[in-house]
């Protein structure tokens, strides 16, 4: 079962919502009751619910954003477009819609590191990154990303020189932010597809870097 559906306020020591014996939790019972009611009342079609789950479980995720970033690494004109009109540039690769209607891309450089948060809820660019991880939605990250971003980054194993400026983007409106990480050294001549394999979800939130090609298994390097 799931030990990590922790409360927003922080990591739970014990977990009240999933039962080791496989019995239904309180939340499972409550949601099942609600679904039955809404179907009976004719407000929802259960097949549509399945289609929504299927979309976010297997079709929309951070591989989409990785493709956008990899394209921006190999195609200067695309990168320029992405930084000027991210909604259109991302849409040209087929990624659009809910929670990504208005996109802005921000690029990391040797002088500036960007990171994204939503202090007020959990706004996140779904079409390019999928649904947000639990930590992104939780108080430890949302509270401290704006006051102590270096401390937060250290918890992700990210250490930046003191001289590097951190830019924090608080998603307070319907604008959704995508961080464009720096292209790793040692990737000259890599294909777009190979480059995309280096682009992690966290590197597009700003809590990580793109993978170092030397960290990959030899057989996956070109």
């Amino acid at each position, binding site marked *: 079962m799931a030990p990590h559906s922790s409360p927003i306020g922080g990591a739970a020591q014990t977990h009240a919502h999933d039962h080791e014996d496989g019995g239904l939790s309180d939340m499972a019972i409550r949601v*099942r009751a609600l679904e039955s009611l809404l179907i009976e009342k004719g407000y929802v079609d259960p097949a549509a619910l399945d289609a929504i789950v299927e979309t976010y479980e297997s079709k929309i995720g951070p591989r989409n954003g990785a493709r956008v970033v990899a394209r921006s690494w190999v195609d200067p004109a695309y990168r320029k477009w992405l930084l000027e009109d991210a909604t259109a540039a991302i849409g040209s690769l087929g990624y659009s819609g*809910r929670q990504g209607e208005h996109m802005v891309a921000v690029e990391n450089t040797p002088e500036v590191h960007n990171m994204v948060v939503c*202090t007020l809820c959990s706004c996140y660019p779904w079409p390019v990154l999928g649904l947000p991880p639990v930590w992104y939605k939780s108080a430890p990250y949302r509270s401290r990303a704006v006051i102590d971003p270096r401390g937060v980054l250290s918890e992700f194993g990210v250490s930046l020189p003191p001289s590097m400026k951190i830019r924090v983007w608080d998603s307070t*409106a319907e*604008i959704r932010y995508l961080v464009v990480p720096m292209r790793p050294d040692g990737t000259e001549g890599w294909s777009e597809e190979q480059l995309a394999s280096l682009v992690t979800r966290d590197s597009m939130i700003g809590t990580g870097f793109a993978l170092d090609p030397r960290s990959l298994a030899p057989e996956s390097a070109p």
Partner: protein
Amino acid sequence: MNGAQDLGGMMGFGPALAEPDEPVFHAEWEKRALALTLAMGALGEWNIDMSRHARESLHPVDYLSSSYYEVWLKGLEKLLIAGGLARAEELAEGRALAPSKPTKPPLAAGAVVKALAEGTPYDRSQASPARFSVGDDVRALNLHPPRHTRLPRYARGRRGRVEKIHGVFVFPDANARGLGESPQWLYSVRFSGAELWGADGDRNHDVSVDAWESYLEEAKA
């Protein structure tokens, strides 16, 4: 509202802990809670700002001790009751005890992919010129509405600089109350870490907030 959702700058929650190889969902019910929220949203009985307000107006203890999909579910239940779509006793029993409210037809399975890919754009046509320009020094107003707002507490009263003009967007403070979209200019305003949090400590960072025009005033020199 100054609720538990407005977390920026709070302390004491401990470290941000990432879960290795985190699954998209942690339980079957989370999938259904997400899908029910999106499918009910498609009926158009409320808007996203009303949804956010339903969640943030949970009691702060309830908000912080609930997981995120629990908050979604509790928000959805509140919206159903407030909107006259269901009664509390129906939610408790999981069956209909009263007639349904007439609504649009439910979101069909075949329409899901298209609806999600289209989303709901929030930009609107520009009826009047923007009050501020890129580079203007502005101050976020010291506002504490007991209702939905998207100006975080940590920015209120603080001085920043307009860095980008996003366009004209639906104003959530009005939209959450059912008062219409009241679109306004939306700006990206950049605040220095020292302005927000004081000059002591490591403040080599800036924070950008997307702020509607009525959250801002011209900063006096």
